[in-house]
């Protein structure tokens, strides 16, 4: 008996240990997930720039004298950048050497130069310095994301380029600054020119459409089911239907969107409008379920008081009950919206997965969404895109967390009230 008791206590400790381990493992996983994504993505918020000393003569802009119109627009800025590079490194003469030199700066450098000159055409004829974007490979090495002694194949900068990099560094012509491009640009094939603005706008439009549809529909459904619906088989069926709809895989909603909204209604592909409609159908059950719970928790005395004042049932609901249920309704709506924001699969089905460079300006423009951008970039081989994928995830997570936090705070406050 005593020996058995000892064994039983040992089993007890073991069991408890397993429970603790399970929690520990889950938390470690959560920690590792965040740590690795932050570590991978942090670099993307910095961007390397190279200083080029320019001297442009008016002749550079008069190549085709006869050409009328916007001469500032048509000049060959690419050639000017290349010339400045050659002048900075006169010792590199062969074609191959020069080509590898050119690859140190981004193809976006020419646009930067044009923008600068359009802002201040008086620079023509003077000596000035411009900080142009480094190419993604140079950027990765300078930021230390790729070790300098890594094999060439992995480093992607050859030895000549490395010595250029070091020369630039030694003469103070290399610096790292905050990566505004990442927040202001649309997608691009070049990592250093790629940004999340297009995807973020796409997400914003989709989520707005989703909210505009799902919120009123969800609240009205909840009000009807909770306050007015007769308890019969039809409403019972609606209820079961709603709880099952909440568990339908998101990709099936995408199939619905493709077959109904695109094929039958002929709405445009890749549009945030359709994305928002699909997301709205997915969010609806969440909002309905949360709203019903919120309406249910309003004390019956409120309703009786409203009736006592002579309010009609509809007035009682909209003037008295719904305002009191609003915190709960909003909590559910925010949680549903956070889910919609992170949803990817259904958007793939309706074509919000295209390579879109231009920022969408309305809900019919082709667009992607933040999670879709993550998906697209994650597939790219360039290291610099991996970094940006993680950074885009961080942005997505910040929004998701903020929304969930708001919901949690709202819920807490609301619980205190009753």
């Amino acid at each position: 008996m005593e020996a058995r008791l000892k064994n039983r206590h040992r089993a007890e400790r073991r069991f408890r240990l397993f429970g603790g381990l399970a929690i520990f493992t889950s938390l470690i996983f959560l920690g590792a997930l965040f740590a690795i994504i932050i570590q991978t993505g942090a670099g993307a918020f910095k961007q390397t720039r190279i200083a080029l000393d320019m001297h442009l003569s008016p002749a550079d802009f008069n190549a085709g004298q006869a050409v009328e119109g916007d001469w500032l627009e048509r000049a060959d800025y690419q050639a000017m950048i290349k010339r400045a590079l050659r002048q900075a490194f006169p010792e590199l003469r062969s074609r191959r050497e020069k080509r590898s030199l050119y690859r140190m700066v981004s193809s976006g450098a020419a646009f930067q130069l044009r923008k600068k000159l359009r802002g201040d055409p008086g620079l023509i004829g003077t000596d000035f310095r411009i900080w142009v974007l480094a190419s993604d490979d140079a950027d990765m090495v300078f930021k230390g994301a790729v070790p300098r002694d890594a094999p060439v194949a992995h480093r992607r900068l050859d030895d000549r380029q490395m010595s250029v990099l070091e020369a630039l560094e030694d003469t103070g012509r290399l610096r790292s600054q905050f990566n505004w491009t990442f927040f202001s640009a649309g997608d691009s094939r070049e990592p250093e020119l790629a940004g999340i603005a297009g995807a973020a706008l796409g997400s914003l439009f989709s989520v707005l459409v989703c909210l505009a549809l799902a919120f009123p529909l969800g609240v009205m459904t909840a009000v009807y089911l909770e306050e007015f619906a007769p308890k019969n088989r039809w409403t019972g069926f609606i209820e079961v239907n709603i709880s099952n709809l909440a568990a339908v895989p998101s990709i099936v909603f995408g199939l619905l969107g493709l077959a109904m909204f695109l094929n039958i209604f002929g709405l445009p592909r890749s549009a945030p409008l359709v994305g928002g409609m699909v997301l709205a159908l997915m969010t609806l059950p969440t909002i309905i379920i949360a709203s019903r719970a919120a309406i249910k928790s309003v004390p019956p005395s409120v309703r009786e008081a409203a009736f006592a004042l002579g309010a009609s049932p509809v007035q009682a609901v909209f003037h008295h009950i719904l305002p009191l249920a609003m915190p709960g309704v909003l909590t559910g709506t925010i949680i549903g919206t956070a889910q919609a924001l992170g949803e990817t699969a259904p958007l793939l089905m309706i074509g919000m997965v295209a390579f879109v460079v231009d920022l969408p300006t309305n809900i019919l423009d082709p667009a992607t969404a933040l999670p879709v951008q993550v998906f697209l970039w994650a597939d790219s081989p360039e290291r610099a895109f991996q970094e940006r994928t993680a950074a885009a995830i961080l942005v997505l997570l910040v929004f998701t967390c903020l929304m969930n936090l708001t919901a949690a705070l709202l819920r807490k406050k609301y619980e205190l009230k009753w």
Partner: protein
Amino acid sequence: MAHAPTLTQVAEIPNSATIGLLGDNPLALLKHPEARTGKPAKMTSRGLSVSYANKPALHDVDLDIPVNRVTALIGPSGCGKTTYIRCLNRMNDIIDTCRVEGSVTHDGEDIYAPDQDVVRLRTRVGMVFQKPNPFPKSIYDNTAYGPRIHGMTGSRDEERALVLDSLRRAGLLDEVRDRLDAPGTSLSGGQQQRLCIARAIAVRPEVILMDEPCSALDPIATARIEELIAALKQDYTIVIVTHSMQQARRLSDKTAFFHLGRLVEQGNTEDVFEAPQDGRTRDYVMGRIG
């Protein structure tokens, strides 16, 4: 579980050598008139105070539980009877906010001592609850639960014998003999409570604590349980909380009256009911408070 007897309390804890003799000690007799039951104490409490989340529920209770006798705890609702009885097998340990001070002994051993094994204690001091709470298992498995976890029986046959014996002692065997595999929850309330008693005695405890075991039962089922308790007292020390004064009188040898968290009076059941010393006891047994 905070267990911090003060120095003076520690000094008052009778050591194991004297505790068994308390009943024969004339000094103790003066100090503890309950010792007149003539039986040595199986369990004792000294200076027992309990609080829930710093809200006191029991103050300074000194009580002896005589061996092989039925001790009844009576008193108005909320006076601390449940709290007291749950201290005797440390059932209060599972309530996070509960703090216990003072000492409780079982066979002279301090059950709140740091090295005390609660599992062993609870096998010796069993419990039957106010509401019948059979496990969602068969009648047989319910009864065999204790013997199985404690490894009390070597073979299946032995186990079966023990289960049948326990059911017989609980007066349930004849009613369930041919449906031992039916779920325990399929029985009537009174049968369920007897099943719970069978389940408790299958572990062969020394003490059985019963917290209002009949409060959820009808009069016929109550009568059955009362018969059962009267029979069980041969082999077990029984502590029973009851709301019914008649039940306490019929069943118990000793009665302790609690009021507002204090032990007001204790003694032979007859004395407490016929000649209560305290005004509050008198009021209660005559039905004026409660």
